């Protein structure tokens, strides 16, 4: 198996009667799923999508997202998942940068998608909602062009946030994705009996990696468009969910959610926490409420899944992201360029068959990050004598908001567009519960108020990038060489 088409066709063939996707009242078997992918592929073909074309997926977690991704891959085209929390300019960047030919969306996002696509040549098609242009009909003969897909053909563009001001395009091939699914499922031991709840976005590398792994193994996936904590709790019980990938803030909210009647979560065997470090307080409070410990997973857009903590001694190792998954190598490299010893801190480097070849159009950045067959993650860590990886910090400069990475320079550049803002510094500060928050320190014309800044941001940048703390100063503290002393502003 070396292409995404083979990956899903194998599950369609081996588990035709298994439930593939559940969304609200919709319940689709693998057999129906296969027919839907045929039907959707035919629809995409009628829209002019051919092998090598790029198609944006601006959809929440949904049956249509799942069908769209596999149909695009079925035609040898390339998917670009776009976060539905993004605003016009952000969506436009993804559409234009990926040269998308078509953007698939839902009814309520159509105007936004059209505005964002107006600069390029991308068409917009509504595929979810009452005015959907795609209507599933199980036909015996659907017209899908015969396309030869090679393992090294590109299948998806994910975008990685760094400190370059704009997200960097990461291309992953069919073979990369199949390898990711193989390595992850073999390590975790998932089977076709598993039922996996997706409240984390499928458009994000974390949700996506778990999602493609679930389909590869023939498991059932239950998708939730928004994180609705009461609905999550109901689904965990009603659907007898066995695996729940989450981010720490979700686990925190669930641990604090008031429930009148205890929930029967006896089917749940794996709760995954990723995207941001899992604070001990949340690890314990979630266990106290639901009787299951969350386990940390580590991955990146560049490499896919790297490690997961499946320790038998989870109480004492909860702050580890675990051992590397099958076929993935992890080494810690010190400042001297040599491999660190047991428990010595250095940069985490990864070699994986699911790894990208580099950043599109950024040769210098690619050379810096991808060296000697390894991805230098920019995260600092150590490996203990049992092979457990601990992340202790990062060299890269970004802010992590519940798993979404915020590039400070992107927000700084945006706020500098405000006519009253003269200088701005964006920082990540840790809240008392261990979560990171965006803080803005501004030098501005007199009279500028916090509410004006919030209003300025509201419809222009995604909500997770909006500063939660805003401080006004007469001037910024600087070193004798003129460099802003950022630490003094925290």
């Amino acid at each position, binding site marked *: 198996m070396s292409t995404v088409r083979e990956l899903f066709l194998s599950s369609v063939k081996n588990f035709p009667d298994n439930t593939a996707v559940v969304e609200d009242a919709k319940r689709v078997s693998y057999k129906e799923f296969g027919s839907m992918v045929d039907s959707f592929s035919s629809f995409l073909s009628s829209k002019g999508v051919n092998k090598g074309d790029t198609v944006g997926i601006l959809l929440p977690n949904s049956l249509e997202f799942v069908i769209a991704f596999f149909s695009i891959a079925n035609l040898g085209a390339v998917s670009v998942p776009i976060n539905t929390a993004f605003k016009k300019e952000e969506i436009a960047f993804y559409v234009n940068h990926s040269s998308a030919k078509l953007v698939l969306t839902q009814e309520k996002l159509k105007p936004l998608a059209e505005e964002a696509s107006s600069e390029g040549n991308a068409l917009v098609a509504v595929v979810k909602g009452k005015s959907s242009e795609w209507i599933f009909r199980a036909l015996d003969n659907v017209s899908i062009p015969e396309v030869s897909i090679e393992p090294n053909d590109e299948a998806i563009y994910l975008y990685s946030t760094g400190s370059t001001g704009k997200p960097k395009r990461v291309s992953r091939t069919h073979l990369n994705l199949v390898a990711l699914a193989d390595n992850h499922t073999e390590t975790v031991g998932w089977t076709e009996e598993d039922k996996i709840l997706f409240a984390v976005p499928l458009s994000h590398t974390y949700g996506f990696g778990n999602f493609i792994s679930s389909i590869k193994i023939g498991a059932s996936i239950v998708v939730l468009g928004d*994180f*609705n*904590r*009461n*609905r999550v709790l109901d689904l965990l019980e009603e659907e007898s969910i066995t695996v729940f990938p989450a981010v720490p*803030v979700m686990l*925190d*909210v669930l641990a*604090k*959610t*008031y*429930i*009148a009647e205890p929930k029967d979560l006896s089917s749940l065997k794996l709760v995954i926490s990723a995207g941001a470090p899992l604070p001990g307080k949340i690890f314990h409070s979630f266990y106290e409420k639901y009787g299951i410990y969350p386990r940390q997973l580590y991955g990146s857009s560049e490499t896919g899944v790297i490690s997961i903590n499946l320790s038998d001694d989870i109480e004492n190792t909860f702050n580890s992201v675990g051992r590397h998954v099958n076929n993935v190598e992890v080494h810690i490299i010190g400042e001297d360029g040599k491999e660190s010893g047991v428990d010595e801190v250095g940069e985490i480097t990864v070699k994986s068959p699911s790894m990208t070849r580099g950043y599109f159009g950024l040769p210098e950045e690619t050379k810096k990050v991808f060296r000697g067959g390894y991805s230098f993650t920019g995260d600092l860590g150590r490996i203990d004598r049992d092979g457990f990886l601990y992340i202790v910090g990062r060299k890269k400069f970004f802010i992590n*908001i*519940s798993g979404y990475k915020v590039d400070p320079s992107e927000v700084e550049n945006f706020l500098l567009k405000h006519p009253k803002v003269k200088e701005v510094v964006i920082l990540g500060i840790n809240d008392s519960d261990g979560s990171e928050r965006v803080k803005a320190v501004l030098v501005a014309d007199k009279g500028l108020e*916090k*509410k004006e800044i*919030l209003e300025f*941001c*509201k419809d222009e940048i995604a*909500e*997770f990038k*909006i500063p*939660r*703390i*805003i*401080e006004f100063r007469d001037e910024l503290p600087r070193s004798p060489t003129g460099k802003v002393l950022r630490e003094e502003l925290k």
Partner: protein
Amino acid sequence: MDIEKRVKKVLIKNALKDIDPKELQIDSPLIEYGVGLDSVATLELVVALEEEFQIRIDESYITPETFETIKSISSHISQEI
């Protein structure tokens, strides 16, 4: 303590750590302080309110109208108690 004072206390502790409590009136538009802009922060506020009042706040009530002012939040909570 009445409901409005308790709501204000929860807001100051969870969502509005960087403002002067005296500045916040029961009819101050909370959107001007960023409340409601961020769905994760709003959710954190909702669970804090649930914890304070030992009630379940259904997701359907998490709307800009409910979170407009301390008064509007308190009014919803008084119906649930």
